């Protein structure tokens, strides 16, 4: 009996103690407090994790949780309010069953992508026409375009992938990629890079942040895949990385603070650039969901 009393007593004490603790934290003047969950794009995840860490070090009262799951999950989580922020590689308008009116788009940074080949194929640039022919299966050997006598191996993404959608739209002019015989499909950029670097004759596409000396990034129509060329849209294969928030205004203050923090020049040229992504603040052009380009 005594034990029980002690037990209940201590539980009560703990509860009251923690309640007091909580209220104490909440009343700190001018400081943001609360939790924020950010779900979605796996491509964005490592960057958002860094951004969250940076944000939390400046706002000690806020806890930001970052999860992957994919762009589709991110968008539906933002729409259905199961997460505070939905990360997506694509515009909400581009996905079926997502109501763009229920969510607000925040373009937080830009990702540049480009075709990469195995270093042994002996090619360092292509015309866009050649690229389309390769990915639709009309050119099947590197020797046809001046490379080694080596069969072309396509390394693709799954059809639902945002990277694939961006590549198909801007690099292949919307041409449907050749699928089937001989092609490989992988979702993760790390795996794509590994396969391209090891498989003779392989061609795939990667974000700039994955470029290194293991694979050969290609010039397209003489344009080099660099950040500077993306700023001016000379290099067309790029996409915004989006953070979507629900329009119901819940947790608006923290959401806005977090996104505003990401859009500050220090963060854009700091964390974002350091991880290989392109600061959205540097962009000289604007692109909408339908793909129309406007000079800023």
């Amino acid at each position, binding site marked *: 009996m005594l034990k029980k009393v002690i037990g209940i007593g201590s539980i009560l004490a703990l509860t009251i103690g923690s309640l007091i603790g909580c209220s104490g934290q909440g009343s700190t003047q001018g400081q943001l407090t609360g939790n924020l969950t950010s779900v979605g794009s*796996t491509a964005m995840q490592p960057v958002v994790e860094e951004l969250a860490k940076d944000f939390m070090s400046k706002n000690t009262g806020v806890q930001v949780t970052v999860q*992957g*799951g*994919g*762009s*589709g*999950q991110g*968008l*539906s989580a933002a729409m259905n309010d199961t997460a505070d922020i939905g990360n997506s590689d694509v515009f909400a308008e581009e*996905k*079926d*069953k*997502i109501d763009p009116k229920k969510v607000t788009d925040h373009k937080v940074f830009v990702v540049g992508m480009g075709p990469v080949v195995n270093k042994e194929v002996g090619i360092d640039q292509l015309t866009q026409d050649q690229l389309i022919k390769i990915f639709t299966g009309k050119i099947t050997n590197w020797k046809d375009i001046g490379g080694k006598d080596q069969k072309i*191996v396509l390394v693709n993404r*799954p*059809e*639902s*992938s*945002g990277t694939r959608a961006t590549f198909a739209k801007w690099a292949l002019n919307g041409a*449907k990629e050749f*699928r*089937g*015989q*001989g*092609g*490989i*499909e*992988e*979702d993760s950029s790390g*795996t794509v890079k*590994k*396969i391209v670097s*090891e*498989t*003779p004759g*392989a061609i795939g596409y990667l974000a700039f942040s994955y470029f290194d000396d293991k694979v050969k990034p290609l010039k397209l129509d003489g344009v080099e895949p660099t950040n500077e060329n993306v700023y001016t849209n000379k290099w067309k294969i790029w996409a915004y990385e989006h953070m979507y928030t629900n329009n119901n205004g819940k947790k608006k203050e923290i959401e806005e603070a977090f996104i505003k923090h990401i859009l500050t020049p220090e963060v854009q040229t700091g964390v974002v650039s350091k991880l290989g992504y392109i600061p959205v603040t540097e962009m000289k052009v604007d692109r909408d969901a339908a793909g129309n380009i406007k000079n800023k």
Partner: protein
Amino acid sequence: MEQVTNLPNKKLEETSLAEELRSPAKKLIRIEQRGRIYTLLSAWILIITLFSLLFFITSKGIMPFIHGEITLQNFFSTHWGPTSAEPGGPFFGSINFILGSLMVTLLSALISAPLGIGAAIFMTEISPKFGRKILQPAIEILVGIPSVVYGFIGLTLIVPFIRNTTGSIGFSLLAGVIVLSVMILPTIVSMSVDTIQSIPQSLREGSYALGATRWQTISRLLVRTSLPGLMTGVILGMARAFGEALAVQMVIGNSPNLPFQLMKPISTLTSVITLNMGNTVQGTPYNSVLWSMALILLLMTLFFILLIRLMTQRGKQG
């Protein structure tokens, strides 16, 4: 608990002896009941979880057909193009993946079953000491290795090996079969060892007394009597192979080809689901078709379990 153990020390008065005898019994009954409620609750939670899972996946899986988003004819075709803008599209043909799953499973069972049963016979009949000391722990370690590690080894060793020896791209049905056969080997071995060990020693002695050699005893007596158990092990292994996602996805190339060429990259149900689940939006046909594939996976697993039940029942009768 304390009160119960203290009971014997209690001084019993003669007049209330009967009562005393009854009252601790009441406490014991209470404990008994508590235990009963606890176990009953556990069992019910398990059953409810199972049935809600079954219900959930089934309802999600048949939804696209009921809503008419996807026709059965479309689903059971070989044309996969869920974002295709061609006339007649999008195409949700999943036969290639269903066959792909079946093919890797059957082929890996074909490799692992003879190997596993052979190893089990060696461990139990030919060299039990070596088996217990070396093979048993080795098998236990194999079981414990996470599937992503198998996949990673496959990606770094088996895929380049196939590429260099055959000149193909390496990502292929064959690579998936090799990785899976290693993965399901321990399941088959340990099940087989258990079955063979459970055969009464007297049977073996009888066989030797009749003048049979050791090999005759093994092949004509042990293998035949333990056949249902051995098959159960093989089917358990197949069920594991069928449901394996990660390791397979890393090495088979995930190309929607029909799985009839060993050197070509293929897809399985699990690999298509894991690759597309996160990128598709709930409620779209593209997402729903993945649930239908999950339903097929579930039905196949149920089929495997049914097969195991049949096998073990036949074993008991025989």
